[in-house]
């Protein structure tokens, strides 16, 4: 056997080895891609958006095609499947071509904005934009994944819904007009149970550590993260942790100033602080364990006892010198939503009473007398509209919620199917604003109204998914 023959054999062996390696690499990548696609599909990527109409009909809305589709769950077809074998291998190896593109919403390999990237990564961010959509349906199911908190930012012409994903702590922004969703941050903060946001970019993400302590991360979204640019990029969420075991937290949405209730050996203490935890000042202390604070737009701090069915509760305004100014109480199963005073609008208060399986809702404007409203719900399902008119929107259970609804609802042991009602507090009247289709069950909570009164967002307490309702068709 001469040298030429040996070289031929060697080349053949090498070619076979290369082809074999490429084939193995292809099958490995395919398996990984399928796994990721399956997991992403299960998590809701590419899922169609159910569209509800007031007439009770429902259709779905594909974010990729902007056309109604028949199925609510439509797994996306892998575009690579229609390509040739070697073309696909080449594309996968080089990372070029259409078939190297990850499914919508899935970070690509090596992307530092991946859910598995390091905290505070500094690698150049990659675009995180989805396909633009002309206009979402009136009732838009923004995502099926659980959300920890949300807030409207911007004005009516540049309105965005900013929200925090529960699984990753990533901050997203949805455009109510186009349906475009962008990711603003890429810092992984897993298992966020509760999130608060401010209009000036502060984010507070609350979770549990291994010891079961409540942690609160106070971060700031970089001002360079555009909310209107189509090429906006996800960036790190820089910040620091506040003290542990903050039982309940409230934030001034404009300034980011905090008021929180923290456990102490004696009971609880109420602390004011800047957004990053500096300038702490304890202005309140109590032996009670369950205070729920809120900071209103007019700067007032409202303290309400956590509610329980049939147990009297109180609500106060907490002055900066620690004085408690009574607002309500004793009221059984008291839940409260206070409207801030501002401009020509007077302050108003909405509260719910729950005892022995009966819920009542009341409203009082200024120093006027209280009016019982003709709906049965709890104030936790309500939100004041920020406009000049005294308007409240409430989720109202359809049907009979049952005994001890409030306690069971707080424990997640029961869920209601709500319609959205509009309440005119000045007139003391209520009317249905939106009734979801019969095949859509919404247990409304964390409800917010945008500044212009055009949109309402809420989460469904049954699965913590995020919804947006346009009040005008």
């Amino acid at each position: 056997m001469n040298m030429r023959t040996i070289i031929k054999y060697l080349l053949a062996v090498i070619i076979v080895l290369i082809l074999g390696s490429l084939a193995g690499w292809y099958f490995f990548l395919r398996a990984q891609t399928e796994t990721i696609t399956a997991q992403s599909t299960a998590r809701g990527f590419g899922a169609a958006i159910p569209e509800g109409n007031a007439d009770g009909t429902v259709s779905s809305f594909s974010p990729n095609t902007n056309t109604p589709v028949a199925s609510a769950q439509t797994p996306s077809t892998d575009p690579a499947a229609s390509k040739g074998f070697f073309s696909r291998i080449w594309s996968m190896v080089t990372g070029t071509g259409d078939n190297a593109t990850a499914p919508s919403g899935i970070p690509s390999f090596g992307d530092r904005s991946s859910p598995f990237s390091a905290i505070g990564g500094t690698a150049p961010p990659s675009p995180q934009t989805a396909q633009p959509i002309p206009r979402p349906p009136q009732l838009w199911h923004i995502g099926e994944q659980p959300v920890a908190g949300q807030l409207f930012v911007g004005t009516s012409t540049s309105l965005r819904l900013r929200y925090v994903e529960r699984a990753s702590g990533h901050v997203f922004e949805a455009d109510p007009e186009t349906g475009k969703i962008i990711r603003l941050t890429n810092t992984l903060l897993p298992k966020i149970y509760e999130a608060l946001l401010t209009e000036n970019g502060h984010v507070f993400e609350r979770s549990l550590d291994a010891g079961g302590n409540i942690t609160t991360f106070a971060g700031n979204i970089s001002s360079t993260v555009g909310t209107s640019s189509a090429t906006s990029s996800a960036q790190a969420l820089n910040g620091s942790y506040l003290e542990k075991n903050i039982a309940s937290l409230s934030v001034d949405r404009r300034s980011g100033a905090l008021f929180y209730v923290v456990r102490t050996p004696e009971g609880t203490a109420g602390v004011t602080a800047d957004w990053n935890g500096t300038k702490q000042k304890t202005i309140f202390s109590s032996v009670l364990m369950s205070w729920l604070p809120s900071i209103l737009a007019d700067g007032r701090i409202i303290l309400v006892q956590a509610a329980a069915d049939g147990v009297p509760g109180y609500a106060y305004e907490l002055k900066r010198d620690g004085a408690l100014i009574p607002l309500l109480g004793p009221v059984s199963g008291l839940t409260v939503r206070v409207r801030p005073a501002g401009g020509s609008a007077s302050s108003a208060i909405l509260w719910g009473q729950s005892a022995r399986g009966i819920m009542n809702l009341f409203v009082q404007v200024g120093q006027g007398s209280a009016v019982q409203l003709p709906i049965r719900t709890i104030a936790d399902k309500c939100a004041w509209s920020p406009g000049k008119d005294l308007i409240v929107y409430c989720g109202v259970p359809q049907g009979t919620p049952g005994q001890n609804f409030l306690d069971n609802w707080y424990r997640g042991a029961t869920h209601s199917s709500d319609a959205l009602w509009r309440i005119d507090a000045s007139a003391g009247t209520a009317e249905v604003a939106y009734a979801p289709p019969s095949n859509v069950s919404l247990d409304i909570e964390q409800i917010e109204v945008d500044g212009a009164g055009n949109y309402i967002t809420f989460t469904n307490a049954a699965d913590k998914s995020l919804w947006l309702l346009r009040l005008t068709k």
Partner: protein
Amino acid sequence: MTVRYQLLFSIVALCATLAFATAAHAQFGLSGSDSALSITFSPTTPSAGDTVRLTVQSPLFEMPESIIVWRANGAVIAEGRGVDSASVEVGAVGTETRISVTVTQADGASASTQATIIPAELDLLVDSDSYTPPFYRGRPQAGAGTNIRLQAVPRFRRAGTTFPASELVYTWRRNGEILGSFSGRGKSTAILPMAHLFGTDTISVEARSADGAISHTTSLSFSAAEPILTLYEDHPLYGILFHRALGASTFIPETEMTFAAVPFFAQALHAYDPRLNFAWRVNTAEIPTKRTEPNKLTINAENSSGVAFIELGITHATNYYLDAKGAWNVTFSSGAGGGTDLFRTNQ
């Protein structure tokens, strides 16, 4: 005749002195010790804006036959023969309402007395240090063995001056019995053990200004809450799904799941308080608990029928009243199938 009037005057003066000494309430101040009249009012400790019903009594005067005139801050609010009661709406906290009543008999004998009503308010707030999970928005309720935590929030004011809570004297009572160790000046809070499993407790607190001029009493009744054992999914991505408690029968579209038990209102600092004893059973088989997280159970239903009957009992090392039980029928989406129930539990 003169002697007779002197005797009557003496009796009137004596009664007035006794009435002053035994005045029913500090908000009711008799202006003259020469009065034979006493005024009672309901409610005895009015709050701001209350309508108070006033009643005049006398051991000497024949009320049905007498002309009675009621005045509030100088204005007549009621008058007539035998009108021994009247109503008045009091003002805001700290606003004085001066009540005077004049009784004149047919024979011309007359007496009058005065009282001052100063509305005060006293909130009595209650919750408990019983266990509730993090981020729970409801009120912790006192289970047997836990503590009731009480806080009195007074609003006492007079002549534009507010009485600080720390300057008032508090008297706490439980079922009518004074709790001496919790009572005293500035003691506006109380932490009481919830010892009973059954029955109802009534707690009251009276706050009184140091000079006794203003006081108010508030009370509330409650029973021990039963611990509620609730089971949640502990999701690998989302954490414990506190918003979705598992029902008695649940289908789970997975083959493996970790469950987290939450003993609402139990005597515990956290869900895996070492004083709590978790006894898990799956399809009647006892499952050893994990030392660090005894409140959690992981079930893998591969190669099984996929049906798990989960039972959990929780007891407490020192609180024998705590004995919570729960049972859940869970059906997994078992891919492999099979007739056995060989669940793989990973404690």
